[in-house]
């Protein structure tokens, strides 16, 4: 029974190849709000399911989770579409929740810490798709040249997504590493988590380079309105405050 529940949880705290279900559903949903709801709800369901099993999960699941996290982080390097990138990073991040599986409340909080920073990028990605038809690096948008405020917001959202300080996922990753060291010592698993973190940065920087940097084309693109910029700034400030508060709880 427990193994069946673990396998079911592996669908929502996605482990490869079950993770392909999430990436397919995410890709099918085109509306940013629907995607946002999915980003918030999917891992929470996983945590609810895992709470019904005998914790901590079997070692095989930990290995499987680590492999999935590294696998999706590695594959994200080649992605040029922001929407798909968000899905891959979400899978990579949520699979790390298996490593700290123990206290259910902490898992819920950590799942939120991994999901919420992706929401703002998801909203921006939806807006980019609406304006340009796709949020893809091949379009050579050169966003900084044609819409500097848009570019600035995109860059900060991307930094939040790749777990930069002081966003919640930064502290969540630190907590995962610290927890892992405390439980099992500094071994390969800790190195793998750290490697996943570097790969996120690698893939995120490639997207920034593809979407923000460049000459830009001659199209007349309206920049983000001032109220929208303030709204996003408020979102980032909330994330930073949440991150600092989370540091006090998790670390």
């Amino acid at each position, binding site marked *: 029974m427990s193994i069946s529940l673990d396998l079911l949880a592996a669908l929502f705290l996605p482990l490869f190849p079950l993770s392909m279900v999430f990436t397919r559903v995410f890709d099918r949903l085109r509306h940013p709000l629907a995607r946002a709801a999915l980003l918030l709800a999917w891992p929470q369901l996983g945590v609810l399911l895992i709470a019904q099993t005998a914790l901590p999960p079997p070692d095989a699941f930990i290995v499987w989770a680590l492999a999935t996290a590294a696998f999706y982080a590695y594959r994200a390097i080649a992605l040029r579409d922001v929407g798909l990138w968000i899905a891959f990073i979400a899978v990579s991040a949520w699979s790390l929740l298996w490593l700290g599986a123990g206290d259910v409340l902490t898992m819920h909080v950590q799942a939120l810490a991994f999901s919420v920073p992706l929401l703002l990028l998801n909203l921006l990605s939806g807006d980019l798709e609406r304006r340009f038809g796709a949020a893809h690096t091949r379009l050579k948008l050169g966003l900084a*040249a044609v819409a500097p405020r848009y570019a600035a917001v995109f860059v900060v959202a991307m930094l939040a997504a790749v777990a930069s300080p002081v966003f919640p996922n930064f502290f969540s990753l630190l907590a995962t590493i610290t927890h892992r*060291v405390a439980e099992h010592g500094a071994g390969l698993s800790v190195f793998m988590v750290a490697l996943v973190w570097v790969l996120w940065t690698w893939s995120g920087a*490639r997207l920034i380079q593809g979407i923000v940097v460049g000459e830009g084309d001659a199209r007349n693109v309206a920049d983000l309105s001032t109220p929208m910029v303030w709204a996003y700034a408020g979102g980032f400030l909330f994330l930073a405050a949440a991150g600092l508060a989370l540091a006090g709880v998790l670390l």
Partner: protein
Amino acid sequence: MERLTLLIVALPLLSAVLVHLLADRLGRRVARLSIGMTLLTLLAALTGLSAIIGGAATGQWSSGGALGVLLLDPLSVLMATVIAGISLIVHMYSQRYMAEESGYARFYVLLDGMTAALLLMVVAGDLITLLVAWHLVGVLLYFLLGQDTRSQTAYRYAFWTLLTYRIGDLPLVLAAALLFNAYGSWSLADIFAAMAAAPAAHQVFGMALPEVVGGLIALAAFARSAQFLMHSWLPYTMSGPTPVSALMHAGIVNAGGFLINRFAPVYVETGGVLHWVFIVGLITAVIGSVLMLAQHDIKKALGYSTMGQMGFMIMECGVGAFSLAIYHLIAHGVFKGTLFLGAGGVIHEARKDDGVPKDELHTFVVERRPERQHRPWLAMAAITLLVPGAILFIAHYLVEAGFFHKQGAVVLLFFGWITGAQLIFATYRMRTENLARLFTLILTSFTVVVIGYTLIAHAFELFLYPDPTLRAGIHAAAGIDLVWFDVLVGVMTAVIVAGWLFTYYAEQQRLREREWFHALRRRFYRVISREFFVNDLYAGVARGIETSATRLNVLLRWR
């Protein structure tokens, strides 16, 4: 007084916010606002420094949580003063230099943000704050180097920097996790006190915890300070604006030396880590200097020069001369910042006069000046080997009789001989119209440099490490077995003598007539012109990773 550290960090942060908010209203005048705030930051740092020099007690400000502890101690206020000072110069220089560039306000926001991150790094009193600041420096540098958002080249090299820095962050994260796990606290003061009380209480991978943590901290320092194999980003970041290059070479790459100093109480409890630090520093110093000499581009040459200097700085840490490394990073920051900010002027002057010395025939026939005397080999070799040694001996005897017992001092003495010889070559070119004047200049240079260096090193050591037990502990941790020490001294002497002999024969044209010598030289040049193929290797690996990831995604239908 402890709140001063909060002010030191908050001022540039506030400046960044104000510049961003007032950019539309103030236009180019935001630079003045930013400069004014940086000046206030410098004044705050100077106040802290003078208070500590004046005997004020060290302390810390705490936000009350696990993170947000800021230290007020000799190392933090000294480094804060240096950073604020260099940042102020860069701010002032940029006011006109960046005037024609797009993103003027953004540049000042990033510059202020970088200043705040660097200051937070040096005053951090807990591991989380240190990690946050350490990480932010890498991120902000990425965007500063990519100030020209239209340039893919600038971002390509900025990306290499970011990736190297992120890889270098990992050992620090791991070290922090290990220390927290062992001592149950993020506070540096608590951790160092607990470690000093029972150094061997915790084991990791079958080794004492200080050994492992010391190694990890050293790795983080290597990445930040561009040590060999983690250096490839440094010479290629010249696509960024010149003020950023100045700030990077004067204030950011030095962070490795600072980090090792901050964790000095950990290194006191280590056995062999500092020896590895020395070896890495030595390799970097030699390779950086060799590559610097092979460059045709002045900014790239300065980049490799920084690599060599960083090697020297890390080497100083390796021999236990921690405070000397701090002095070195300050001195290097000042002179390298000056060189970068003056590079544009040099290029401008070179367009009028190339500055290439006339050959001797031209001097004799056209300028009607007597042929210069040159190659006083024996005297020069004797000076290189004997005079610095004598002066160092006298200097150390006058400053502190026991100084010679520290092996680090002797190792540095040997290295000083080599660099001294290089100095003679570079400055006087071994040719002169007046031999007596040349010798006087050489002797004066050595005397000033060596005595000055010794005195300053001693003063820095007393200021940064007032506890004599800690000072002795650092030198003891860097010490090696006497037999090995003698072997090393012998090898270094042989290297110096061989170098002189090689130079002598090369200059005497005996070697130049040999075909094997030309073939060897060509092969060597091919290797160093490709920078030991390190960049090719990394580029190939990165391409391989990206290509294989793409193939895998295609195979799995991007799911």
